């Protein structure tokens, strides 16, 4: 089953919704060519989730993916954590942000590059090769990825 207006497979590379992506590096460490997508899943009912799940809210498997890394998002809320856990630099600025994917709101949570933000600000994903020191905390280092995207205010 697929929705009538949705892609049935493959990756929707998305589009840059604001700013000039070439103006500032979207990578903080590592080779930009190795940068993975900030991948969300699209489901038959048209909904999109980050992160992807084996099945979507409608109980059906994804029919495609959306790369959020070249899009911009809006800050829903943010905090600065002064007592982060092992392997995380203090202070740790965090936000829930919302992307607009063809009219579908898609939220993500991630570190901010700065604490100088406000609700409603526009931010862009910036790749980081290591968001947190693997093995410093309780979780088995091999059990998950440690790279990903921080969010930086769009100038």
């Amino acid at each position, binding site marked *: 089953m697929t929705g009538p207006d949705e892609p049935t497979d493959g990756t929707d590379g998305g589009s840059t919704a604001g700013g000039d992506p070439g103006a500032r590096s979207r990578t903080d460490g590592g080779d930009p060519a190795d940068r993975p997508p900030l991948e969300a899943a699209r489901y038959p009912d048209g909904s999109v989730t980050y992160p992807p799940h084996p099945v979507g809210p409608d109980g059906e498997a994804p029919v495609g993916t959306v790369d959020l890394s070249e899009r911009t998002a809006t800050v829903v809320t943010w*905090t600065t954590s002064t*007592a982060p*856990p092992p392997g995380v630099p203090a202070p740790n600025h965090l936000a829930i942000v919302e992307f607009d994917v063809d009219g579908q709101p898609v939220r993500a*949570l*991630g570190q901010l590059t700065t604490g100088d933000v406000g609700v409603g600000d526009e931010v862009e994903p910036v790749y980081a090769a290591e968001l947190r020191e693997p093995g410093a905390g309780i*979780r088995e280092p091999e059990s998950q990825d*440690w790279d990903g995207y921080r969010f930086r205010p769009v100038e």
Partner: protein
Amino acid sequence: MERVAIIGSSMTEFGAREGEWIRGLLAQAGQACLADAGVDPDAVEHLYVSNMASGEFEGQTGVPNALAHDLSALPAYTARIDQTSASGGAGVYAAWQSVASGASSMTLLVGGEKMTHRSTAEATDVIASLTHPVEYKHGVTLPSFAGLTARLYLDEYDAPRESLAEVAVKNHRNGVDNPHAQFRKEITVEQALDSPIVADPLRLYDFCPITDGSAALLFAPESVAREYVPDDDYVVVTGIGGATDTHVVHERPDPTTMRGVVESSEVAYEMADREPDDVDVAELHDMFTILEFLQSEDLGFFEKGEGWRAAGEGVTARDGDLPINTSGGLKSKGHPLGASGVAQVYELVAQLTGTAGPRQVEADVGLACNVGGFGNCVTTTVLEGGA
């Protein structure tokens, strides 16, 4: 189906229990609970232990087996109930279910956690290990979820920052009269507002402490309860519901609503044939001050966006219309993860049987809401006096 009664209850002192470990803490509460009910250990048919992380904190697993042996409750059926911070509430559910189903006519539930030998950062990380990998790698902690949600709540409902401090002040005030509480000192709104930032806009006094401790409850069918408890002076679980929300917190459309609280309470109210207005006293999961607002709204006590007014106006104070957290709550009493949901019911048993001493309020109907993760899993329980 015969009603399920609680015929015994106990809790240890909550706090930094230096030199005590999980086995000893569980055994202390378990023994005291059996003694409270006058029930021999060999009468216990089912034994549940609510605990989140004894393996991660201490390297001790298999705690239900250990406790059954230490209490001489062999050969009782045993199981560990883990629902993170809501392990205690989930244990109440499991114990209720074991008796309601007829599988057991005497079920002991003991909840406990040993945490304070770990640093704050380590303990926070053990708790944060419940998060999804895309959250964990960003260093997200439960306190940071609280900061994110508090900012949204204060902005959306135009609530003053002081309203959060008023929850901390109230619950510290209640804790002064609780001999089991970790903190037994009053604080002021100014102290709360001047304390160090932990997860902006939340400060130190918006958070519960890290705690060692345990609590226990003994469940039996009401017909058995009458054999052990004179004058029907026991408490009955008249309604109980459990529910689960998204694992990934940011996928919820409105972070200021805890769907698990809404849905579990709807089930509990219906089973008890009660409404929010019928509740006389409640123990809520105030791991962070903001959670008292969210739960008091999602349980139907107040309209959405209005719960922040309650503490400041005295509505939820001990002498108010709806006393909340007469025990001092997690904020003042402390939060030994697996014990907290059990200790909430311990307080309500005391309130409903008139044994709460200086904390006593007028109450016929009590409600406990125990939350795991950041609203990820919830048990809501309605309790009333027997007979």
